[in-house]
């Protein structure tokens, strides 16, 4: 049944069933108009890359590949390197994922598999609402409400109990990588939860019933039938969250402390690519300084592009698996 549907699709798409000249003309206008819109989007992407490249040229010419491995940021001497920003971007995103993934998957399992319907619908809606809160508001809340809590008791407790790990050493600043990670977690939990819930609900009931009929408990059914069936979709959901965390700017800028340094301690202030650009772009002067900021943007662009491509591929793989099974 599904096969025949996909077989028919192409002939409909071409829309060459109309025979009269007027309809053909209308079709052609419509075709060209939509083609232009589609091309426009591609053109914007390519244009963006070209402009970023051109503006970054002074920095690319001056530092070459060393830009990626250097950790200085000295506007006076005009020596710039991206390493602390790359490090901070990856570190804060990883902290965000470590916190967000278990929470999101747990919430998604509850909403998709366990919750009664009267609770599942509003629950999902509320979680998705969380994604609609502007990030500057989350940032403000983070700075005034969350950061003091993170400083004490969270960081002082972590320091006194897990202080033997370099991750949890040093003075509890409050603002820093940990605060940025927690803020990112809050921001990506809705998207990971929403996508994973949808992916789980797409698992056919026949799979659930087959596992139950073998004498599985509810948890065994989820663990052995539902989660394996949609695992690549779940990976896609997580990477989608990662993509958002990598590029998140405003809230992170407000709570990360903006210190251009690489430290092992999660308590110390740091910087991400996005926060660096946001906090310095307005006052940057000189081709090399501006070029370096633009080159940072280019680096972020490439990182998020890669992450999104991976997510796309995973989701695509999952949908093809589904098609094979019918």
């Amino acid at each position, binding site marked *: 049944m599904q096969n025949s549907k996909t077989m028919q699709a192409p002939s409909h798409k071409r829309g060459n069933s109309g025979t009269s000249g007027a309809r053909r003309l209308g079709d052609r206008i419509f075709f060209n108009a939509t083609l232009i819109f589609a091309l426009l989007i591609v053109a914007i992407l390519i244009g963006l890359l070209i402009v970023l490249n051109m503006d970054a040229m002074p920095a690319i010419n001056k530092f070459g590949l060393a830009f990626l491995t250097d950790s200085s940021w000295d506007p006076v001497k005009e020596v710039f390197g991206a390493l602390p920003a790359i490090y901070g971007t990856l570190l804060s995103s990883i902290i965000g994922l470590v916190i967000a993934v278990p929470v999101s998957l747990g919430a998604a399992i509850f909403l998709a598999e366990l919750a009664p319907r009267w609770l599942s619908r509003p629950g999902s809606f509320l979680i998705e609402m969380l994604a609609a809160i502007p990030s500057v508001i989350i940032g403000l809340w983070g700075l005034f409400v969350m950061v003091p809590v993170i400083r004490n008791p969270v960081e002082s407790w972590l320091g006194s109990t897990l202080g033997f790990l370099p991750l949890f050493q040093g003075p509890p600043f409050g603002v820093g990588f940990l605060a940025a990670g927690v803020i990112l977690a809050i921001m990506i939990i809705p998207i990971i939860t929403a996508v994973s819930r949808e992916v789980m609900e797409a698992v056919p009931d*026949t*799979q*659930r*019933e*087959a*596992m*139950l*009929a*073998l*004498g*599985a*408990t509810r948890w*065994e059914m989820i663990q*052995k*039938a539902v989660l*394996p*069936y949609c*695992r690549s979709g779940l990976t896609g959901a997580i990477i989608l969250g990662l993509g958002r965390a990598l590029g998140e700017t405003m809230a992170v800028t407000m709570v990360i402390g903006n210190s251009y340094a690489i430290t092992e301690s999660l308590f110390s202030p740091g910087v991400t690519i996005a926060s660096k650009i946001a906090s310095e772009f307005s006052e940057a002067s000189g081709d090399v300084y501006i070029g370096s900021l633009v080159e940072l943007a280019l680096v972020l662009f490439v990182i998020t592009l890669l992450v999104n491509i991976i997510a796309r591929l995973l989701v695509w793989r999952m949908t093809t*698996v589904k098609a*094979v*099974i019918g």
Partner: protein
Amino acid sequence: MVHEAVNQADKESRSEAVAAAPVHVRNILEVKNLSAWYGNMMAVNNLTMSIHSRSITAIIGPSGCGKSTFIRCLNRMHEVSDGGRVEGKVLLDGKDLYARDVDPVEIRRRIGMVFQKPSVFPTMSIFDNVASGISLTRLWSRKRDLQDVVERSLKKAALWEEVKDKLNQSGGSLSGGQQQRLCIARAIAIAPEIILMDEPCSALDPISTLKIEELMLEIKKDYTVIIVTHNMQQAARVSDRTGFMLLGELIEYAPTKEVFTVPKDKRTEDYITGRFG
């Protein structure tokens, strides 16, 4: 070897029961005044019947007559569906499946089920598919035992020769008929007492259907099979007893030959002669 032991014990208790019974088969399952609903819609209406052990019982009837719902009540799968509700009794060897202290998970291990659409687990290998049910019981922790059980189950399901060289491939790589036999192997592997089949051939081609029918005749030596089918020829070919359902009620239930040659009820006659349905 635990499997062997369980099977052995099982067989002994069965043969005792057979010896005790006045006829050579016993009533393994007794359904008493069973009614089932989806929300407010009644699907099965006050149904009473006895199922003979080591035989094939076919349930026939037009679409929507409640036959699928009925067998889903027999291993407590109906209550999994949205708004599914059951009243009445189903006695398995005298013990009510719907008694309060009965764990449905336990029941489903004793009464296996094969569904209309082959429902292999696509992320598991063929081997793991067969082992999926038994590994849930955690009785077969040793790899060697597991291999024995998987091989034996696949042989019983007449699939071993076709898959023995590719046990590590995905279960999704098999054809529809092979997938359905894989599902039967998976159900057999947990050594249930009864196997329920809900239109197991409706998605298959005639040759695969024939294979599954041969398979049913083979496994009824060890198991009790209850099959729901809208294919009357199939019921006539494989079953020992046939029940005809209409609008949630059991109209007639008798040895298959009688139902198809001398039906007692006018409605049964009309249905099997193709006057409706």
